[in-house]
């Protein structure tokens, strides 16, 4: 039985081990509360993380620690990592954001907390994380039957995914930061730590730049400077927010007083790109130049039927069909559009042929024939 196992420890360490066993229900409850509070707070702040881990140190692991340095602990309360939590972020700037959040939701023991990111000496190596020692404040959780929940401390580590990779691999080398290591390895370890730190910073900077770019695009779109905005997934999404196809869509729906069923227009981006559209101004021109003819096509297809529902994609779909027809794209051009929108099939060729055939009756196809 584990309870009878003394792990070869001296009497002082066995006393600490016994306190650990007695406190186990408190540790388990503490782990549950810490996990819940962190999960809820991160969600409320909209912080998207890589992982949230919590654990209670195993008896075997504690015994190992006591065997090595049990004499430095007065009693179990000196051990602050019996309950441990770890928040792993994607970006380095989020570590500080989470630290600020932790300061709000727990009582941080500043005297014993350490920013290991800043403590490396020249003769040590590493790429470390931020460690806080905390307590659960009474206003967050209090159980009169378990007052130790607010007295015992736990350790909270905050690190990026790359810091986590370093910590995991570092553990494997058998060397610890602060311990003298053979000089020939020190240089390489420092280089590796530097690379990871640089990569973390670059990812963070890249994200900031992408966010700046998105804000700039939104501003250009809302100000109508479409010619300055290259067509890509982000810009097309921003552009759709101003409802560029709404005018035509409502005109088409009005043909049969149809309901408009909201559907995603993003799949049409690949068609626009395949047709050589480079900026949002190209789409604006498509609407300006072909709106009337797209309406004529829709009226030809829908008027006279009992259809009273259309997809919100119908306006762009008809604009593209008309664009192909009027620019000599022919059957293959139409098939390409349908292949990209609906997936490749033999039917798309048949449909393209039908549209080509039907279009002969439309006014816009006979503009140049007087």
């Amino acid at each position: 039985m584990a309870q009878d196992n003394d792990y070869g420890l001296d009497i002082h360490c066995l006393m600490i081990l016994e306190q650990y066993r007695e406190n186990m229900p408190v540790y388990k409850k503490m782990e549950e509360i810490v996990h819940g509070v962190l999960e809820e707070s991160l969600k409320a702040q909209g912080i998207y993380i890589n992982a949230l881990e919590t654990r209670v140190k195993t008896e075997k692991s504690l015994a190992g620690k006591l065997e090595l340095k049990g004499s430095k602990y007065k009693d179990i309360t000196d051990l602050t990592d019996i309950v441990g939590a770890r928040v792993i972020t994607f970006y380095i700037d989020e570590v500080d954001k989470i630290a600020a959040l932790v300061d709000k939701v727990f009582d941080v023991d500043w005297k014993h907390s350490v920013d290991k990111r800043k403590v490396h000496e020249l003769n040590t190596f590493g790429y470390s994380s931020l460690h806080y020692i905390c307590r659960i404040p009474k206003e967050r959780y209090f159980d009169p039957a378990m007052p130790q929940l607010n007295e015992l401390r736990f350790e909270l580590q905050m690190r990026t995914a790359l810091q986590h990779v370093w910590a995991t691999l570092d553990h494997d080398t058998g060397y610890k930061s602060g311990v003298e290591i053979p000089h020939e390895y020190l240089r390489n370890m420092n280089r590796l730590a530097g690379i990871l730190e640089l990569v973390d910073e670059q990812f963070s900077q890249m994200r900031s730049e992408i966010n700046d770019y998105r804000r700039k695009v939104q501003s250009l779109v809302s100000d109508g400077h479409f010619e300055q905005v290259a067509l890509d997934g982000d810009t097309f999404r921003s552009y759709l927010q101003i409802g560029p196809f709404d005018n035509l869509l409502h005109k088409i729906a009005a043909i049969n007083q149809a309901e408009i069923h909201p559907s995603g227009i993003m799949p049409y981006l690949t068609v626009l790109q395949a047709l050589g559209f480079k900026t949002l101004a190209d789409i604006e021109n498509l609407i300006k130049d072909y709106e009337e003819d797209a309406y004529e096509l829709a009226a030809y297809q829908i008027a006279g039927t009992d259809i009273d529902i259309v997809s919100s994609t119908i306006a762009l779909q008809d604009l593209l069909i008309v664009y192909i027809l009027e620019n000599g794209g022919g059957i293959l051009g139409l098939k390409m559009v349908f292949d990209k929108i609906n997936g490749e099939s033999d039917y798309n060729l048949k449909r393209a042929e039908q549209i080509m055939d039907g279009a002969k009756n439309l006014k816009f196809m006979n503009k140049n024939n007087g």
Partner: protein
Amino acid sequence: MDVKITKQDAKTFVQLTGRLDTTNAEQFQSDITPLMEDANPDIEFDCTDMEYTSSQGLRLFLMLQKTVSSKGGNMVLKNMKTQVKEVFDITGFSNIIKIV
């Protein structure tokens, strides 16, 4: 509209015959609804003998597609006659519902 439902392993096959319109859409919905109760519905509609669908039929297929997707399932309409497929095409629904 005649609806014939058969099950083979975890997959459901639905054979549709005739016209789907306002006169029978409600019955069609009651026939199909139990199929949506499966955890991961996998439904294949054989439309070989389906002659027509009205807007009401479109709405039902859209509703089914939404339910099936939300449950992580799969729904496909096969062997559709050209005049039926055209209804999906000219309303812009061909890329929302899987038609092969």
